[in-house]
């Protein structure tokens, strides 16, 4: 036996004071990190409230001093100076909506993300059910196909997809924005894992009750899969709301079809210093819905991300 007496020490963990130095240091590090993490978001909100001169010179505190400033563009149009004094917040946000059809872009965002999700569910759910619960010739092969397709990130094959769509004349359309995302092998995989935990007896009981297979999918499997579906839905909506690359490729001329990220980018395209405020306002508007939803439904969001890790 080794010499035990020589090394007695305090049970530091369980006897620690509430505000021990260790906890304090951890918090210090995390707070520092939080500052770096939140910096751009802070700036974004702050600039969206400020007048151009304040933006340029980094003055005005968080929300800007809200002094009316001179709108040069309005003067160019020939109005008198007094008519062209505007309040920064009002100016920024109204310009955001006027200079480009921001509402339209937001609506596009909603249309596209919701459509994608709905179609993904319609395609993936039955397939997952069949792979999990039905026995048929070629099941292993189909699942193998799913596994193989999991290796392919859709962004990687954007180019050939673009060519295919161009040949079909489908560029610059909702179809182009939605179609490549309709097949979510990740969704199939996730739902299959989930369905495999549903007891076979439940399905047999439904069959005894006379339900058709089709009915089983939507009336029996769907309700049990709600948590996984919600998580998947969140994952999908976030990814496609924020997607910049694919819409950039596929929407080449028709501004009416811009999704929110494209709308913001376009703003930047013809922005000079004066339009930074409205651009930030646009950014706020685009970013806010997801962040609010996230704050309200944190658990589900994080569950969604973690479920993707439970491969």
């Amino acid at each position, binding site marked *: 036996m080794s010499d035990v007496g020589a090394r007695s*020490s305090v049970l530091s963990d*369980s006897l620690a004071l509430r505000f021990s130095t260790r906890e304090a240091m951890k918090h210090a590090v995390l707070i520092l990190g939080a500052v770096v993490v939140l910096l751009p978001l802070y700036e974004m909100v702050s600039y969206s409230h400020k007048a151009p001169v304040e933006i340029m010179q980094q003055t005005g505190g968080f929300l800007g001093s809200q002094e009316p400033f001179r709108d040069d563009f309005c003067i160019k149009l020939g109005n008198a100076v007094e008519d062209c004094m505007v309040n920064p917040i009002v100016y920024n946000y109204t310009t955001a909506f006027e200079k480009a059809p921001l509402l339209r872009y937001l609506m596009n965002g909603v249309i596209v993300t919701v459509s994608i999700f709905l179609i993904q569910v319609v395609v993936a759910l039955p397939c997952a059910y069949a792979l999990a619960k039905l026995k048929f010739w070629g099941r292993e092969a189909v699942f193998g196909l799913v596994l193989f397709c999991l290796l392919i990130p859709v962004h990687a094959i954007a180019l050939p997809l673009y060519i295919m769509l161009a040949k079909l004349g489908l560029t610059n359309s909702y179809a182009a924005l939605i179609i490549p995302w309709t097949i979510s092998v990740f969704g199939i995989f996730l739902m299959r894992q989930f369905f495999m935990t549903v007891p076979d007896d439940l399905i047999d009981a439904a069959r005894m009750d006379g339900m058709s297979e089709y009915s089983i999918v939507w009336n029996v499997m769907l309700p049990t899969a709600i948590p996984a579906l919600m998580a998947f839905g969140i994952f999908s909506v976030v990814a496609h709301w924020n997607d910049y690359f694919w819409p950039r490729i596929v929407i080449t001329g028709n501004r009416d079809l811009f999704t929110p990220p494209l709308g913001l980018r376009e703003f930047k395209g013809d922005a000079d210093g004066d339009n930074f405020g409205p651009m930030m306002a646009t950014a706020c508007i685009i970013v806010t819905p997801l962040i609010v939803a996230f704050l309200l439904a944190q658990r589900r969001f994080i569950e969604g991300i973690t479920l993707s890790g439970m491969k």
Partner: protein
Amino acid sequence: MSKIVLSGIGKSFGSTQVLRGIDLTVEAGEFVTLVGPSGCGKSTLLRILAGLEAADAGEVTIGDRDVTRMRPADRNLAMVFQSYALYPHLTVAENMMTPLKLRDLGLAGRLPFVGPIFARAEHLRLRKQVHRTAATLKIEALLDRKPGQLSGGQRQRAALGRAMVRNPVAFLMDEPLSNLDAALRVHMRAELSELHRRLQTTFVYVTHDQAEALTMSDQMAVMMNGEILQYGRPAHVYAAPASLEVAKFVGSPAINVLPGEINGTGDLSVMGKTLIPDTRLARQPVSVGVRPEHMTLDPDGPFKGVIRHRENLGSDIFLHAQVDGLDKPVILRSHPRLLAGTGLAEEVTFSALADEVHVFGADGLRQHVAKPSLVEVG
């Protein structure tokens, strides 16, 4: 070897008080069991002894040292967990090396790849120790396997090996057999007892299974609601339970509890039939406990019942008899040969062995009966 003394141990989790003033002395080399239903605090007490939890009040002494504030590793105790807690990424041999390495090697010796080079002699010595322990437990063949490749019983031995290899002052075991199937459990009970006899180290064992406690321990502590209700030799706890709760917990099938009464002259009667005259106890209502094996079918017996249920275990038969005035059936033990004819719905008469009758007062505590020197009272 050292004596272990726990005095005045108290512990609360939030507003629930889990341990209330526990005093316990474990003599060196004893096999002591902490037994009780779920939630009685036995695991918490064990963890406090190990150093994994800190007590809110009280002291822990090992030998002549107060270890209350010491880290687990410094107390020189070893623990076998219910889930075995073997490191899944290490082989059995490496699992067993871990406590030795952490304790005996300096920083250089512990480095992942170069360690064995720096401290070559040390490593060889430790490895020999591992092999010796593995030989004692007959797990040499398993040394190169990982826990995931072992069966339940093998993992149990590997966990034991990891505990044994450091020659601790005492082994602490937290329900180590509860994850095994019934047959293996019975086998392991014998093995653990054998191991204890061979090593002669102190064992502190926690379980909810009173059969394990009865068969393996030198001393058993029956715990309920954070208190030790009785501490003593298993045979004594069985034969002379200190309270009604202890009597009901220890022994299977459970003891029969019958309502009784001591009258003005000290006669004990149950359901109107006098059982023991002149007990020298005060006049009071009492609960009378009689174990199934102390009830016998007796044509002249004072009690009458109708057989509602028979359990033939091969070696014993247990009859459940419905008696007028009692909610629960009275259970009698007998031998298949004697009861060949007795069937369901038959009316039987039986009596209780007066020597083996336990009397408990209204507070649940044992009352000592002045035993008359007689046999059955009919």
